[in-house]
């Protein structure tokens, strides 16, 4: 490979390395499917809505620049969890306590979290 090609490739790699892939894993540790809705205070970010089957998980993967490296910093407003018999509204403050970072951010939804009787 000649020097021009190496330089060109280096430029591309430098530019593309300015974005990062981040993620939140949502683990449904209950038997029932849970519909998850995430809303943001920034109006230009549409709500995220998806269903995680019982005893399954899913991952929100997204690319961001270095200035806004995770969803929690990007105006996350509320997380709503709904399993048809119980709907839980988790504010940003509550989400920050319950979403743990271990590489990925991870939210584990168990029976206790989905109980509307406490």
């Amino acid at each position, binding site marked *: *490979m000649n020097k021009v*090609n190496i330089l*060109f*490739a280096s*430029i*591309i*790699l430098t*530019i*593309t*390395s300015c*974005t*990062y*892939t*981040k*993620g939140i*894993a949502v*683990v449904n540790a209950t038997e029932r499917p849970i519909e998850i809705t995430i809303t943001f205070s920034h109006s*230009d*970010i*549409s709500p*995220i*809505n*998806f269903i995680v089957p019982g005893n399954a*998980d*899913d*991952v*929100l*993967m*997204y*690319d961001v620049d270095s200035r806004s490296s995770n969803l929690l910093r990007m105006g996350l407003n509320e997380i709503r969890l709904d399993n048809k018999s119980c709907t839980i509204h988790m504010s940003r403050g509550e989400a920050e306590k319950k979403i743990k970072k*271990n*590489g*990925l951010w*991870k939210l584990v939804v168990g029976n206790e979290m989905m109980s509307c009787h406490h």
Partner: protein
Amino acid sequence: MHKDIDKPVKDFRKNWNQAHRRHIKVHTGAHKATWAKATVLLDKKIIVVHVHLNFKQNNISDADYKKLKYLVRTGIDKYWSRRINVAGNSFMVWVKASHSDVNAIPVDLYVETDKDNYARSMNPATLGIDASFIYNKGWHSNTKNADSDFQLVSAHEFGHSVLMYAGGIPLSWGHKGSTGVLSQSVKSSTPGYPKSGAIDIMKYYDWEKNFATLQRRVTDSIAMEIDVKRLIWGANIK
């Protein structure tokens, strides 16, 4: 089919008044990609496309090398095999990826174990640079997701070679117009993920406009018909 991908075959017989010579000018580059070979079974309406990748082990273990090769091969087979329509006829296209030391797309295989780093795979498909397919073992919280993500990413990165061959840098690096060629960032005009149905495996989408989870992308991503036709356009035809 050439016309479908905006590379029509030009028939010079009319211009040259040489109809007796059966001389047809085909667009430069058609059916000359060394890493793809297509077999058309007209009677069965099946097209089999064998694509060759030269998997390089680098410093990963034998077990990881074997596993990653398997995931790349099955990922390409899964996301690039589909039905296409040619002149009103439906053909099933089976794409079969395999390792080859020669006439193959060079691919460096890596395993990233850092749980805080999602390493980005890439395939410039030019400049004599090998593609890098990176398995994010540390970042994902379980093996199933890491495997699925790697299959999806590998099929996408393989597609860069297809787009590069058929349409050059703007088509390949620009993700079919969905990103800047050099910035790789989505354009303001790029839509969010489709609400339902097929997700174009070669496009980027603006997740802030509409999101798709990993499971949705694993389930609904597929190579678009035009891109499979681009693959066949580049492949040697048996």
